[in-house]
């Protein structure tokens, strides 16, 4: 029997089934829950590895199920889909380990891990979606499954954050739905196609297509935290650290950014989009968001809030990369999907460690913390340098390609945005590093948990170290096959600019 058509479905099921089982588990079945979580994550990674190998050798993985009379639920593993799937499957495993350590002894863990698995299921569905309605389906499922995670703490602040999150995302969802149905009524298909599927309609329905583009981008922009739809993200910081990691690096904002890539390349087609004149405003909006997010980050004293505004800024690199509408910039944008994920998840893990171990939430409390928790802060430093764009960390590669791509597409102004952003990133990250490494620690930390000779629990320390090493590795080994950069080039070659 040929299993290829079922593998995408199995990848989705490998987190869905453990999730559903975990919902049914009693709170105290810790070991079984851990096993289910890890088995699901490892199986998923294994399947993803199989598909990576297969795609590289031009295999074809596609699941099709009937959804509506003329529409199908399509899960298809192309190069771009796999980039995102690999990112989320890999980081899911790391985050699961982290979450098990982080939530040890806290209530409602079955509920938490159940929704956690659903959330990854939805993300993988978003990544593998082969048409816009499948994308929409998983995109909304993502909204629903992250809400319980955002309000997990159950405090008033958490509830308010959850409410804000829902208001933003439901409005976004409605816009996306409208755009999708409208597009369908014009084209009669929603299948993601290299170079888009609206060819031939540009002249007849020009204004409708322009409006649809902005409806879709606005709907996706809510999750991608594009200005002015970013308001929910800093508020959602009340959620536990693994959830922040999930929101910022693995799932939510990435799903939005990924969706924008899909819309530009596989719905409209980048040439058509440029001809419609919609990429330039998108590039401008992304550039503005980059600078705006960095400026706001500068003035936050709360560490997680600063990181949140930093995410708003960094994720827009992806939108900027595709909106420049040239192959090299696209490589930069797409590869940043992975790079930003690795760096930002490291930073959030570290922030979580500081909060859990020493009760540090504010930057002003971070004096000398590097001496108490050297490994954590080393990982943090790697992440921070990556965000600034300094070599040899992943962020440098992204910026290099974005810059080259902008020059190639005759859009020199982008260089100023990139330089400005790097400068601002340096301005809000370097003072943190300076405090942590070069100032004297206070007499007593707000809270102090001891873990023997280690600085913190293994399950908390290992994940940021792993992701920090990966953030270095993807940059140092960028020119080897299967590195994110090489894969992004493969995507550009096979999917976006296929002759």
């Amino acid at each position, binding site marked *: 029997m040929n299993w290829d058509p079922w593998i995408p479905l199995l990848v989705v099921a490998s987190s869905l089934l453990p999730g559903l089982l975990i919902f049914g588990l009693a709170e105290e079945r810790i070991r079984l829950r851990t096993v289910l979580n890890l088995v699901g994550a490892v199986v998923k990674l294994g399947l993803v590895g199989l598909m990576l190998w297969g795609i590289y050798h031009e295999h074809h993985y596609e699941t099709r*199920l009937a959804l509506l009379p003329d529409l199908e639920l399509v899960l298809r593993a192309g190069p771009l889909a796999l980039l995102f799937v690999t990112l989320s499957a890999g980081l899911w495993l790391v985050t699961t380990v982290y979450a098990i350590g982080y939530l040890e002894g806290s209530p409602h863990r079955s509920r938490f891990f159940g929704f956690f698995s659903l959330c990854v299921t939805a993300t993988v569905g978003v990544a593998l979606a082969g048409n816009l309605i499948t994308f929409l389906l998983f995109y909304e499922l993502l909204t629903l499954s992250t809400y319980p995670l955002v309000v997990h703490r159950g405090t008033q602040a958490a509830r308010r954050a959850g409410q804000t999150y829902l208001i933003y995302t439901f409005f976004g969802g409605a816009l996306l739905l*409208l755009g999708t149905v*409208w597009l369908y009524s014009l084209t009669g298909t929603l299948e993601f196609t290299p170079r888009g599927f609206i060819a031939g309609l540009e002249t007849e329905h020009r204004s409708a297509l322009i409006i649809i583009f902005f409806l879709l981008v606005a709907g996706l922009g809510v999750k991608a935290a594009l200005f002015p739809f970013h308001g929910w993200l800093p508020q959602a910081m009340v959620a536990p650290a693994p959830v922040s990691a999930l929101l910022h690096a693995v799932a939510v904002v990435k799903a939005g950014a990924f969706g924008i890539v899909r819309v530009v390349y596989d719905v409209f087609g980048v040439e058509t989009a440029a001809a419609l004149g919609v990429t330039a405003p998108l590039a401008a909006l992304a550039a503005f968001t980059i600078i705006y997010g960095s400026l706001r980050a500068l003035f936050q004293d709360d560490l997680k809030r600063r990181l949140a505004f930093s995410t708003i800024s960094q994720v827009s690199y992806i939108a900027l990369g595709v909106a420049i509408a040239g192959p090299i910039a696209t490589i930069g944008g797409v590869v940043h999907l992975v790079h930003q994920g690795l760096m930002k998840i490291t930073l959030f893990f570290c922030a979580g460690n500081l909060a859990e171990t020493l009760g540090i939430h504010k930057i002003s409390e971070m004096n000398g913390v590097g001496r108490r928790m050297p490994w954590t802060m080393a990982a943090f430093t790697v992440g921070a340098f990556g965000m600034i764009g300094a070599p040899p960390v992943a962020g440098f590669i992204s910026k290099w390609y974005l810059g080259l791509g902008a020059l190639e597409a005759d859009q020199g102004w982008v260089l100023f945005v990139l330089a400005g952003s790097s400068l601002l990133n340096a301005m809000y990250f370097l003072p943190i590093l300076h405090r942590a490494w070069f100032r004297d620690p206070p007499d007593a930390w707000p809270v102090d948990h001891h873990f023997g000779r280690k600085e913190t629990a293994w399950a908390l320390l290992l994940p940021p170290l792993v992701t920090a090493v990966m953030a270095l590795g993807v940059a140092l080994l960028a020119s080897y096959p299967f590195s994110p950069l090489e894969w992004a080039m493969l995507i550009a070659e096979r999917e976006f600019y296929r002759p």
Partner: protein
Amino acid sequence: MQDAVTQFPWAIVLILLPLAASMIGFLLPRLAMTLGLITAVSLILAVTGLGWQIHYIYDGAYQHAVGGWGAPLGIDLYADGLSLLMLTTTSLVGLGVSVYSVLYFERQQALRFWPIWLLLLAALNALFLSADIFNLYVTLELLGLAAVTLTALQGGKAALDGAMRYLLATLLGSLFYLLGVALLYHSYGTVDIALLAERVEATPAVWAALGLMGAGLLLKTALFPLHFWLPPAHASASAPVSAVLSALVIKAAFYILLRLWLVIFSPLGEGAASLLGLLGAAAVLWGSIQALRQTRLKLLIAYSTVAQIGYLFLAFPLAGAAAVSAWSAAAYLLLSHALAKSAMFLAAGNLLHFGGHDRIVDLDRVVQRLPLTVGAFALAGVSIMGLPPSGGFIGKWLLLETALQQGRWDIVAVILLGGLLAAAYVFKVLGHALTEAAVMHEPRAVPKTMEWSALLLAIAAVLLGFLAVPVLAWFGLSEVFGISGVRT
């Protein structure tokens, strides 16, 4: 043998079985519950059998002359895809509600509940199998009386008050309908729907009949602004009864309206279609806003029904140009709403049973003790909001698509806005599900059957989101709704 199976009169079983069970239940109350459960399960079989017959033997429409006397003298039974849809909805919700009711009622209440509930099932099934407008009247009246009795069963001032309003509304509605029937009978000498369809012309008498029957049925369907009786009745009845009222009883009146519209009246009224669409839109918005303003859970759900009924009427102005897609959307919404709304009311019943109240702001500690019930409410909510994956989403998608193809931006806006408002009122309740709250007292436990019957109905509503193709094909809706206006 082969013939015995294929020719088995499932349609008659659908009517006589619950009727007989009800009669025995009146006489021997102690058997009523057992009989009720057996009947509920058998109805699923019978409706599947009938569906199979319609599909493979009768080629889309089943017809049976009771006692060998055909129309216009005798009583005909008629079932096509639309009837099958309604019968299936009834049997599914009926099974869920029956299982739920086993442990819900106190002993004394149970003795009275089961016979009437079975009678109501018989009335519903008979209504969906009727082929003439007078039989429809008889079954409609029977249905209304059974429903009112069930509402009053709860006892207490609120329930009696609600039941009284309900009684007046339902009697008035039937009266109007009956006047319309009389007018048509007087003009054309028949009450058979098929015969009427051939004879009807646009005369003043027909217009008057349309107006009277329409008004009566709209009152019974509780379409805005004739919904005034619904919230008190649906909110004050006991949980299984509320579920049945919202999921099935008002849909019966809608079914009659749709049936008459499709066969008899549609050539008459562009204007009437627009009016119905307008009222539907108003119902969506008004009902949702009212639901959002409620402080009691059951009232919130009841107003949500007012809103959801509105969606069904949005199909009327769209059906002129695209009958199949508009009516398929309405049918799918109807089915998913029936499942989701009954799940919601049953879940609300659990919360009420557990905490002793349904004040939304104080639900926190109740909600946290009943994860299955909250799960049922949440999944049902997904379908009510029209979010994927759920039956509600499929219905909404079909409706949106049809509206967009016809450039009806007003309807598009109403659908999207209605979805957002629904999300607001569903999360007004769910927002309490995940908060930290101390448990004040150890309240009554909720039996597992009550939690699971709500959850399974909700899961069914969600699963409908993946089954659109087989479901639409099974009911053969594209044949029922004619070949005109198929998507280009």
